[in-house]
C-alpha cells in the first residue's frame, strides 16, 4: 500500500489550500476528487470575493481557483480526478474508487475536505423538470454557458440565493422574484441591493405553495406565512416562470468522518468535532471547509491552510516556532472573517437593530433589498461634498476592506476592524479614478457629482452601454427615475470585467439613481 504524509479528500478551496501548505513544508501529498476537474465550486463563483487582501478580497472566485491550481502544480502536488474516496478507517487507510477499480492508500495524515451538498425544499410539484438547485444553475451558466431557463424564481435569500440570482441576470435570464420564508434577507444587503436596483422583487415571509406545469414547470405559486409558518389565505401570488431555483442551505458531507468513527456534533448539519487546528477526535484525521461547518470559500481556504500547517508540524516538517507564528496569522485572519452582522453567532438572528457603530440597520434593506433615499444618508460612507466623490452604500458590518486599499488618495477609511463601515474622509481629494467602484465586491460604491448630475456605477451586464446612448436611470428599488445619458464608459484590466459607466441625470436624481437600463425612459 502506497504511503503519503498527507492524503487530501476533495480538491476544493479547503483541500487544495491544505495540500499547498503541506507540500510547501516538504510533505508528500496526494489529493483525490470525484469530479472531472479540480477547484470544487470555485470555478462557478464569478463574483469578487469579500474579506481582506490576504484572502484575495476583490478577486473573483474563478481566478482564486486558477491561482490555487497553479500553486498546486508548481508544488508538484498529485491531484487524482474522477477518484471517489469510498472509505477511510481509523488506521488512516483510504479506499479510492476509480474506473471501477478500488485501491487503498495509507496516510500519515488525512484531511477530509469533501464539501457540502445542497439541501432541498419539497413542495407540491418540486419534482417537475425545471425545479433545480442553485448549484445546478451555476454549473449550467458559468461552466457550460447554457441558461438554466428564461424566467426564474429563486427560493432562498442567503448569499447563495442572492449571488446566483445576480448571475442569472448576468447570463441574460429574467429573475421574477427572490422568495424566503424568513422575515429577513439572509445574505449580505449589498448582494440584495444589486438585485433590487435591477428590478428584482423580494418576498420575505413567503414560501412556495406549488409549482405547476404539464411535463415541466410553467408557473409557481407563493404565499405569505404567519409567525407559525402557516400560509395566510388571500396572499397567494402566481408567477409564470419556467424555472424554480432552490438555494435553501447546504449540508456538510461528513459521511467519511462518521464512517471512520470520528466524534460527530450538530452544527447546522452533522459535522465532525474538530479542535482549533481542524483535527477530528481521531489523531491524524483532519476536517476543513464546509464538511466541518458551512462557511464561505475564504474561511475554507484558511481552515485548510491551518490543517495543512498542523499536519506538517505534527509530522516533523516544520518546527514549533514556525508553526506558532504562521498559525497565529491565519487564526487572526479567520477571526476577522467571522465577525460582524453575519458572523456565525448572528446567523439567522432577526433582532439585530444596530451596526457595531451604533447606527440603525436598515429594516428596508433586510426586507426589500434596498435602502431608502433617506436611510442612505445616515451612514459614514455617504457625505455631501462639492465635486465628484465616492458614495459608499455599505451599511452592514461585513468583513471586507478592499475599498480602503483601492483609494490611493485617502478618501476611504475602514481602519483596523475589517467589519467597520467604510468612512469617507471629507478632506481628501477624490481624483475620480474609479478604482473603489471597481474594487468593491458588493458593488456598493458610486462616484457622484451632485452639481453636475453625474453618477458612475459598476456595470457587469452584457452588452456594456456606449457613450452617447440614452437610457433610463433606475433607483435603488429598480424603479425608473428619469432619462440617463451615458457620458463615459471605462474598462481596464485593473477593473477585471467591471465596467465603470458614468451617466448624466437630472441633478435631483444624483443621490437616487444607482442603476441603468438601456430601455428608453418614458414618464
Amino acid at each position, binding site marked *: 500500500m502506497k504511503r503519503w504524509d498527507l492524503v487530501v479528500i476533495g480538491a476544493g478551496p479547503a483541500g487544495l489550500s491544505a495540500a499547498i501548505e503541506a507540500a510547501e513544508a516538504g510533505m508528500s501529498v496526494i489529493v483525490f476528487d470525484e469530479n472531472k476537474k479540480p477547484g470544487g465550486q470555485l470555478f462557478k463563483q464569478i463574483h469578487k470575493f469579500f474579506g481582506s487582501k490576504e484572502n484575495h478580497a476583490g478577486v473573483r472566485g474563478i481566478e482564486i481557483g486558477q491561482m490555487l491550481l497553479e500553486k498546486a502544480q508548481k508544488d508538484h502536488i498529485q491531484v487524482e480526478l474522477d477518484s471517489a474516496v469510498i472509505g477511510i478507517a481509523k488506521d488512516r487507510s483510504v479506499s479510492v474508487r476509480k474506473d471501477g477499480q478500488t485501491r487503498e492508500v495509507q496516510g500519515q495524515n488525512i484531511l477530509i475536505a469533501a464539501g457540502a451538498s445542497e439541501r432541498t425544499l419539497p413542495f407540491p410539484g418540486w419534482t417537475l423538470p425545471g425545479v433545480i438547485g442553485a448549484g*445546478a444553475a451555476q454549473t449550467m451558466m458559468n461552466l457550460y454557458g447554457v441558461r438554466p431557463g428564461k424566467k426564474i424564481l429563486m427560493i432562498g435569500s442567503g448569499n447563495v440565493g442572492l449571488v446566483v440570482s445576480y448571475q442569472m441576470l448576468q447570463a441574460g435570464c429574467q429573475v421574477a422574484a427572490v422568495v424566503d420564508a424568513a422575515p429577513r434577507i439572509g445574505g449580505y444587503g449589498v448582494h440584495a441591493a444589486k438585485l433590487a436596483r435591477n428590478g428584482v422583487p423580494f418576498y420575505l415571509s413567503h414560501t412556495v405553495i406549488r409549482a405547476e406545469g404539464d411535463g415541466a414547470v410553467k408557473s409557481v405559486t407563493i404565499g405569505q406565512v404567519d409567525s407559525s409558518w402557516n400560509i395566510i389565505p388571500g396572499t397567494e401570488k402566481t408567477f409564470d416562470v419556467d424555472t424554480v431555483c432552490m438555494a435553501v442551505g447546504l449540508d456538510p458531507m461528513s459521511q467519511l468522518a462518521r464512517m471512520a468513527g470520528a466524534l460527530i456534533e450538530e452544527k447546522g448539519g452533522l459535522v465532525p468535532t474538530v479542535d482549533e487546528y481542524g483535527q477530528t477526535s481521531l489523531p491524524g484525521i483532519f476536517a476543513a471547509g464546509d464538511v466541518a461547518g458551512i462557511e464561505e470559500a475564504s474561511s475554507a481556504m484558511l481552515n485548510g491552510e491551518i490543517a495543512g500547517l498542523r499536519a506538517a508540524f505534527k509530522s516533523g516538517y516544520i518546527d514549533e516556532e514556525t508553526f506558532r507564528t504562521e498559525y497565529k496569522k491565519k487564526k487572526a485572519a479567520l477571526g476577522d472573517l467571522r465577525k460582524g452582522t453575519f458572523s456565525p453567532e448572528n446567523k439567522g438572528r432577526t433582532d439585530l437593530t444596530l451596526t457595531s457603530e451604533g447606527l440603525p440597520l436598515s429594516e428596508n434593506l433586510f426586507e426589500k433589498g434596498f435602502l431608502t433615499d433617506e436611510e442612505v444618508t445616515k451612514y459614514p460612507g455617504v457625505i455631501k461634498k462639492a465635486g465628484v466623490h465616492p458614495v459608499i452604500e455599505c451599511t452592514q458590518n461585513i468583513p471586507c476592506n478592499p475599498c480602503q486599499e483601492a483609494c490611493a488618495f485617502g478618501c476611504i477609511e475602514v481602519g483596523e476592524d475589517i467589519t467597520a463601515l467604510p468612512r469617507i474622509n471629507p478632506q481628501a481629494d477624490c481624483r475620480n479614478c474609479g478604482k473603489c467602484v471597481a474594487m468593491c465586491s458588493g458593488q456598493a460604491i458610486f462616484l457622484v457629482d451632485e452639481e453636475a448630475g453625474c453618477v458612475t456605477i459598476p456595470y457587469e451586464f452584457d452588452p456594456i452601454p456606449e457613450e452617447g446612448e440614452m437610457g433610463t436611470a433606475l433607483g435603488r428599488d429598480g424603479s425608473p427615475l428619469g432619462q440617463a445619458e451615458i457620458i463615459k464608459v471605462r474598462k481596464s484590466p485593473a477593473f477585471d470585467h467591471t465596467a465603470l459607466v458614468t451617466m448624466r441625470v437630472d441633478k435631483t436624481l444624483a443621490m437616487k439613481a444607482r442603476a441603468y437600463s438601456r430601455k428608453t425612459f418614458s414618464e
Partner: protein
Amino acid sequence: MEDNRIVHHPILGTYEKGNLVTFTYDGKEMKGYEGEPIAAALLAAGVRIHRYTLRQDKPRGFFCAIGRCTDCVMVVDGKINTRTCITPLREGMVVQTQHGIKA
C-alpha cells in the same frame, strides 16, 4: 439550438468549447459541443424531460447537475441510468428518454 446558449458573458466572455458534434435524441438529430455534459446540450436545445419514473410515470429533468441526485438519467448508447449531467457528449451518441428502466 443556440437559443439557450450564452453567446457572450459579461465576466466570462466566450466559453471554451469542443467541436460541434451531432447526436440523436429520441431519434432526432441534434447538435452539441463535444465534451460538454449531455444534459447541457439538451438544455441548450430546450429539452427538459429526461426520463419518466418507473411506478408513477412522472417526468424528471436534471436537478443537481453534479452527478449526485440521479434525476437526469437517460438511456445513452443503450446504457440505462446514465447520468447525463456528468457524461460528456460525443459524436454520434444515441440519447433516449428513459421510461422506468428502459428506453
